[in-house]
């Protein structure tokens, strides 16, 4: 790799959005300790498009939860956008999730009773933005994903692809440092999957950093770099022609 070696006590270079250093996560299950992640060191530059792959049990989900600041590591460091977040508390992590991370889930995770606009507004609500400004930003974000005419539809009035677009708009609305997608096409047919991959590609072209967890090689093929995990460690880390 071209990255310089990181040692504890350093700060990441300015163009490094994600830096993990010997990141480990252990769970205690009864009397047994499960070492889900055994020391993952990885650096992701701004505007990279990275796919994280690996069989089930490889530590992929644990890695994704840590990157997404939903979980805290047992050991090691995690720097996100120049800030060390591995030792932050609950409320600080909530703030980081709100500002720096845009989640896209396999099951969309939209609020069923709220319309598309309101779903997209949610991160801005928690950012403390005023209603008028919020509405404008949310409708801009929906327009960006091509849903300007579906703002007042509820999730159950939208197709799977449209729902995932709403979720993408929601992920982007607060201009996060990374777009973190967990099996974003897992619940979609192949035509719609391609459509969503097209959206990701366009966002990447516009400068968005994208990290996508998937187990499908076809989907991972869309990324410019593929990291494979196995048994809680990085197995391969390859650039590929996008």
């Amino acid at each position: 790799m071209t990255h310089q070696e990181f040692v504890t006590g350093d700060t990441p270079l300015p163009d490094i959005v994600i830096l993990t250093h010997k990141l480990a996560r252990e769970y205690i299950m009864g009397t047994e300790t499960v070492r889900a992640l055994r020391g993952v060191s990885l650096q992701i530059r701004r505007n990279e498009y990275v796919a994280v792959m690996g069989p089930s049990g490889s530590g992929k989900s644990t890695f994704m939860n840590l990157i997404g600041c939903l979980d805290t590591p047992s050991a090691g460091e995690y720097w996100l956008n120049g800030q060390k977040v591995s030792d932050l508390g609950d409320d600080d992590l909530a703030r980081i999730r709100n500002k720096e991370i845009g989640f896209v889930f396999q099951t969309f995770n939209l609020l069923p009773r709220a319309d598309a606009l309101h779903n997209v507004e949610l991160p801005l609500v928690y950012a403390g933005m005023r209603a008028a400004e919020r509405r404008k930003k949310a409708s801009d974000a929906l327009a960006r994903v091509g849903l300007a005419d579906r703002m007042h539809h509820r999730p159950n009035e939208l197709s799977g692809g449209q729902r995932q677009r709403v979720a993408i708009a929601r992920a982007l609305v607060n201009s996060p440092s990374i777009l973190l997608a967990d099996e974003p096409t897992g619940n979609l047919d192949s035509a719609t999957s391609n459509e969503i991959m097209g959206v990701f590609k366009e966002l990447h072209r516009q400068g968005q950093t994208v990290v996508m967890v998937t187990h499908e090689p076809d989907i991972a093929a869309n990324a410019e770099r593929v990291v494979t995990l196995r048994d809680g460690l990085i197995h391969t880390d390859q650039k590929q022609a996008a």
Partner: protein
Amino acid sequence: MPFYEAISLALQTIRAQKLKSFFSVIGVFIGVTFLIAAVSIVNGMNRYMTDKFAATIVGVNTFQLRQRPNINFNMTDSIWRSWRRRPRITFADADAVSRGVTVPVTLSWYSEDQGTVEYNGKIARGINLEGTSADYFDIKNLNITEGRPFSPQEAKAGIPVAVLGWELADKLFIGNDPIGKTIKIQGLPYTVIGVVEKQGTMLGMSLDKFVVAPATSPIQRDVNPPHVVDALMIQANTIPEMNAAMDQVEGIMRSRHHLRPTQDDNFALETSAAVLDWWSGISRLMFYFGPGIVMISLVVGGIVIMNIMLMAVAERTREIGVRKSLGAKRKDIMRQFLAEAITLSTVGAALGIATGIILSIVIQAFTPLAAQVAPWSVGVGVLLGSVVGVVFGTLPASRASRLDPIAALRQE
């Protein structure tokens, strides 16, 4: 998330689940309905007692000299027995008082009992038989619509003439003119000379089932032992004059009963204050038991709301996970669910207030009870509603706020 947004979110949730929300607030609803209705009955009855009841029973600026109080509350046997041993008020006492009082007053003898009145084979039972002086009609402000009252001369001579209450006249004569007819009171004949204007009802009892005859007419044998009256009614022009007259009457009666300065009065001077005392005793009872009932239903209602909220937290675990992943802090989630509990119970309280007000209007219109909504009880209702929400919403809300986002997102 600001609190008003949390509340508007809560209102959306309630609107989406109207029936469930209604059942979850039914305890608070019942509690507050009871609160509003009970307070308005006490309040309405208070007014009624002060404005009408006391004046009707005793008379305005009027007191009664009696052997023992007519209106009493919390009586014990021993007090009752000691009252029974007191000397009765006699015709001679009444005369002495009339002569002795220097304050300008109107007086009337008054004795009463229940009895039977008949006319032409028609029998009216349970009629109030009243033996009085001529001024009784003035003191009680009774208007004669047909005929005339008896004169002081008739009263003094004990002429057997009778003035009928409206309902009694209606029952015996059914629309025919009663004036000049002869009725029998407890079997003895009296000539009807007048009918009193309809008085209506009080607390469901008719005020028109009575007959008035001169106290010294034969009716005296039906209502009291010879030369004894139940009461001497004394009406002054003003309250201060009434108090002065009461002092004079007390002096006269103490001397007539040969009481030493250390001895208590062995007679009673009763004003409308006694009626109000009696009523305030009853209303105090309402104020003891009322809050208990309200509290019980509010606590039950609160527990129901707590359960509903715990269920809501369980059902919406995934929503909580999503919100947390989007940057909701613990206090945001806490606030959301607390606002929902508060909104629920306040909506319940508002429904209770509306129903309580409707109920008190219905009570006022269709029952003998008086009811009038007390504005403060509306305030208390709203306050109690939100307090219940805070108290019983805290546990579910804090449980929601502590959920682990990963586990919450994984929930189906």
